[in-house]
C-alpha cells in the first residue's frame, strides 16, 4: 500500500538532504518532484495545486528547526499538510439514540458496495449489533443474490423484498421491518452505475428522503483516477454524504484518491477495505496513512495485526519452552503458521518502518510452505530431537517434502542458530521473537 509513492518521496527528500538552509529554489525543485509523484499517485490536479501551494508557503516561510535538516524539514511540512488534508482521528459509526441506525451506501458500479455491506455487517455483528441488510440494487444481475449469499455466510438477516422492484419502496419497507423487529442497524445497498447520471442521483435522493438515513456512506475505489474528486464532489452535492469508505486498498494503489475525496468533500474517510475476505476492513487512521505515504511504515497496524493473530496462551507456553530450552521444530512450524495468519509477508514488511527502502527484496511466500513441508515430512521423534537427523533421514525428508537435501540442511542449520539465539534470549530479559527479516533475506528460506 502506498509503497511506490513512499519510494518517490524518499528520493525527493534525499535531494534536499545535506543542505544548510531550505532555500526557495530547493523547495521549488522538491515541489516539482512531489507534483509528478502525486500525479502518478492519482491525486486530482485541482487538489494537488492547492496542496503544493500550501506546502510551498509553509516551507519557504518556515524557520528550519535546529534539530532538523532541511530535507527533514520539508518532510515535516509535507507530512503536516497531508495529515491536515486527510483529517481527524478515526471515529466509529455512532448508533442512533433510537434504533435502528440507518446506513445508506452509495457509489459507482464496481466500487465494492455490496462486499463492503457484508464487511460492515460482520463488524457490527462482532460488536453484538443486530443488522438487517437491504438489497436495493434491482438492476445488476444477481446483485440481490450476492447480498443473500453474504447474509447466509455471516448469519445476518437480509430483507426479502418479494416482488417489489422499486428501490425506494424496498428501502422504506425494510426500515419499517427493522423497526418492528428491533434491529440495531439497517444497511441499504443501493445500485451503482458506470456513470454519474441523473436517474441514479434522483433515486438516491428519493431513498434518502424516504428513510432519512443517519449516515450516507460513499463507497469509492481507492484506485480511482483524476475524476475521483469530481465524482465524490457530485455525490456530495447531490445527496450529501457523511463519510467515505475506500475499497481495494490492499493492492499497490498509491492512494491519491484518498486525498482527492477528502479535500473535495471534507467528509471523513471512515474505513478502508484491504482484501476480499469479509474481515478485511480497517478503521482509517489519517496519521498512519500519512506515515505510509512518507515511507515511515505503519507500526500501529502491525502491532494490531500481531495481537489479532497471536494466541496469548500459546505465546506464554512457548516462552516457557524457550526458557527451558525445549523449543522444537514443531514449535517452529506453529510459529510460522501464526506469522502467516497476520497476512502476506509483503503486507507485513510494508508496515515496518524503513522496509520500503528494501525494495527489490522479493519475499518468497512459498518459502514458508517449503519449511512447513520439510517439517511435516519428519517423524515425530525427528521434530522433537533434530540432532538425530542423519544423512539417510535427510534424504528421506527431502524426498518426502519435494525439496533437496541442501534445503533440509539449511533449515536445520538455521534452526540450530535460532536455538542458540533463544538461549541468549532466555538468559537475558528479552522477550521471545525471531529474526524473521533475516530469515526472509536469505534466498531459499
Amino acid at each position, binding site marked *: 500500500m502506498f509503497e511506490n509513492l513512499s519510494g518517490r518521496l524518499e528520493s525527493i527528500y534525499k535531494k534536499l538532504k545535506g543542505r544548510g538552509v531550505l532555500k526557495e529554489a530547493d523547495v521549488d525543485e522538491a515541489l516539482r518532484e512531489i507534483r509528478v509523484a502525486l500525479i502518478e499517485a492519482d491525486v486530482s490536479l485541482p487538489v494537488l495545486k492547492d496542496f503544493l501551494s500550501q506546502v510551498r508557503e509553509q516551507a519557504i516561510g518556515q524557520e528550519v528547526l535546529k534539530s532538523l535538516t532541511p530535507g527533514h524539514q520539508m518532510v515535516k511540512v509535507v507530512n503536516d499538510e497531508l495529515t491536515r488534508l486527510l483529517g481527524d482521528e478515526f471515529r466509529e459509526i455512532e448508533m442512533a439514540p433510537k434504533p435502528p441506525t440507518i446506513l445508506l451506501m452509495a457509489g459507482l458500479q464496481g466500487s465494492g458496495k455490496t462486499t463492503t455491506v*457484508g464487511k460492515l455487517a460482520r463488524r457490527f455483528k462482532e460488536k453484538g449489533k443486530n443488522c438487517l441488510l437491504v438489497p436495493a440494487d434491482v438492476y445488476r444481475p*444477481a446483485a440481490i443474490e450476492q447480498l443473500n449469499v453474504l447474509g447466509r455466510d455471516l448469519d445476518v438477516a437480509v430483507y426479502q423484498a418479494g416482488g417489489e422492484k422499486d428501490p425506494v419502496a424496498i428501502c422504506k419497507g425494510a426500515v419499517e421491518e427493522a423497526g418492528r423487529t428491533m434491529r440495531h442497524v439497517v444497511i441499504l445497498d443501493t445500485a451503482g452505475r458506470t*456513470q454519474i447520471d441523473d436517474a441514479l442521483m434522483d433515486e438516491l435522493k428519493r431513498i434518502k428522503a424516504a428513510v432519512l438515513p443517519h449516515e450516507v456512506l460513499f463507497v469509492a*475505489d481507492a484506485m480511482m483516477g483524476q*475524476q475521483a474528486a469530481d465524482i465524490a464532489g457530485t455525490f456530495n452535492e447531490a445527496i450529501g454524504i457523511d463519510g467515505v469508505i475506500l475499497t*481495494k486498498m490492499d493492492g499497490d494503489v498509491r492512494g491519491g484518491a484518498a486525498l482527492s475525496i477528502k479535500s473535495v468533500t471534507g467528509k471523513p474517510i471512515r474505513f478502508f477495505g484491504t482484501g476480499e475476505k469479509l474481515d478485511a476492513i480497517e478503521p482509517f487512521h489519517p496519521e498512519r496513512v500519512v506515515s505510509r505515504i512518507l515511507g515511515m511504515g505503519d507500526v500501529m497496524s502491525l502491532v494490531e495485526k500481531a495481537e489479532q493473530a497471536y494466541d496469548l496462551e500459546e505465546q506464554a507456553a512457548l516462552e516457557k519452552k524457550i526458557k527451558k530450552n525445549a523449543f522444537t521444530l514443531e514449535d517452529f512450524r506453529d510459529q510460522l503458521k501464526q506469522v502467516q495468519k497476520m497476512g502476506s509477508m*509483503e503486507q507485513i514488511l510494508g508496515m515496518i518502518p524503513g522496509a520500503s527502502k528494501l525494495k527489490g527484496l522479493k519475499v518468497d511466500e512459498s518459502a514458508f510452505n517449503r519449511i512447513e513441508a520439510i517439517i511435516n515430512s519428519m517423524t515425530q521423534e525427528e521434530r522433537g530431537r533434530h540432532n538425530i537427523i542423519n544423512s539417510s533421514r535427510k534424504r528421506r525428508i527431502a524426498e518426502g517434502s519435494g525439496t533437496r537435501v541442501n534445503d533440509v540442511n539449511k533449515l536445520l542449520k538455521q534452526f540450530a542458530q535460532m536455538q542458540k539465539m533463544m538461549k541468549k534470549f532466555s538468559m537475558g530479559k528479552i522477550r521471545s521473537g525471531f529474526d524473521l527479516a533475516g530469515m526472509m533475506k536469505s534466498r531459499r528460506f
Partner: protein
Amino acid sequence: MERALTDPVETEEKKGGFFARLKSGLSKTRDTLAGGIDQIVHGRADVDDALLEELEEVLLLADVGAGATADLLAALKKEVAQNRIRDQKEMLESLKEHMARLLTENVSPESSEAGPTKVILIIGVNGSGKTTTIGKLARRWKKEGKKVLLGAGDTFRAAAIEQMRVWAEREGVPCIHQKSGADPSAVAYDAVQAGVARGMDVVIVDTAGRLQTNQNLMEELKKVKRVIAKVLPGAPHETLLVLDASIGQNSISQARLFHEAMGIDGLVMTKLDGTGKGGVLFSITRELKLPVRFIGIGEKAEDLQPFDPAAFVEALFAR
C-alpha cells in the same frame, strides 16, 4: 427508467452507426480532452510555453499520466523548435497524430491459428467489469452466427456464478458452472472440454477478480491457464485483461503485473461511457506494447466495440 435489466434487444435497432455510438459514448472523454484542448487552442494566437502547459494539464486530467504526457509534449516541443508547428491548429493535429501512433504501434492482427474452438480467458481486478464484458462478447459473437459457450470461472465472489448464468440465459448460450468455491481450474477444464466436445466456435472463461499484487491468486490464475492448455493445446488463444476506465495510474501496474504473470494478448477497457477518460491507455501501450481489443462505451451488449485506434483518437477530438 432504462436500466441493465430492460431488454437490450428492443433498443438496439434504433441506434445509429458505430461512429455515432462511439462518439456519444465517448462524449464525456471528448468534453474533457478535446473540449479542453479546443478551448485552449481557439483562445490563443501563438504557440508558446503557456499553451503547452495548459495542454499538459488537459492530458493529465484525462489520466494520460505523467510519463506519457511528458513524452507527447516533448515531441510537440521538438516540432515547434523545428518550425514544423506554426499555429495551434497544427499543434492539435500533431498531438492527435502522436496519440494515435502510440495506440496503433502495437496493433497486431488477432491470432488466427486457433483451431475450430477458440478459447478466450478473461482476467482483471475486482469490479473491472469482467462478467459483464463476457456477456457482451457472447452476444456479439452469437449475433455473428458463432456458437458460444461460457465458463463461470469466478467461483469466489458471492453470486458471480448466478450473474454469469443470468447473462448466459439472456443471450441463449450454454454456461458451464460448478458450485461456489469450486476450483476455478476445474471449471475452466470442464468448460473447454465441453466447448471442444460440443463443437463450439468460442469458449469464454471467466475468472474471479483479483488484485495484481496478490501472489497466491496470480498463481491460481496461471494454473487456470495451464489447465486450459492441457485440455486444448494452444489454448487459451486470447487472454484479455479487462481494465476499468475510471481507474487511474494503477491500471499500468495492473497491466504490467498481469502481463508478467500470464502474458496478456490484449486489453479491454470498460466504462468509457462514465466519467473515466481512459487516458491511461496511452501509458500502457507506451510501456507494454499491448493492443487494445475492445472498449465498453455503454451498458448495452452492443456497446462493447472492437477497438479502432484511429476512430478512438478521432472520436476524442471530434467536435
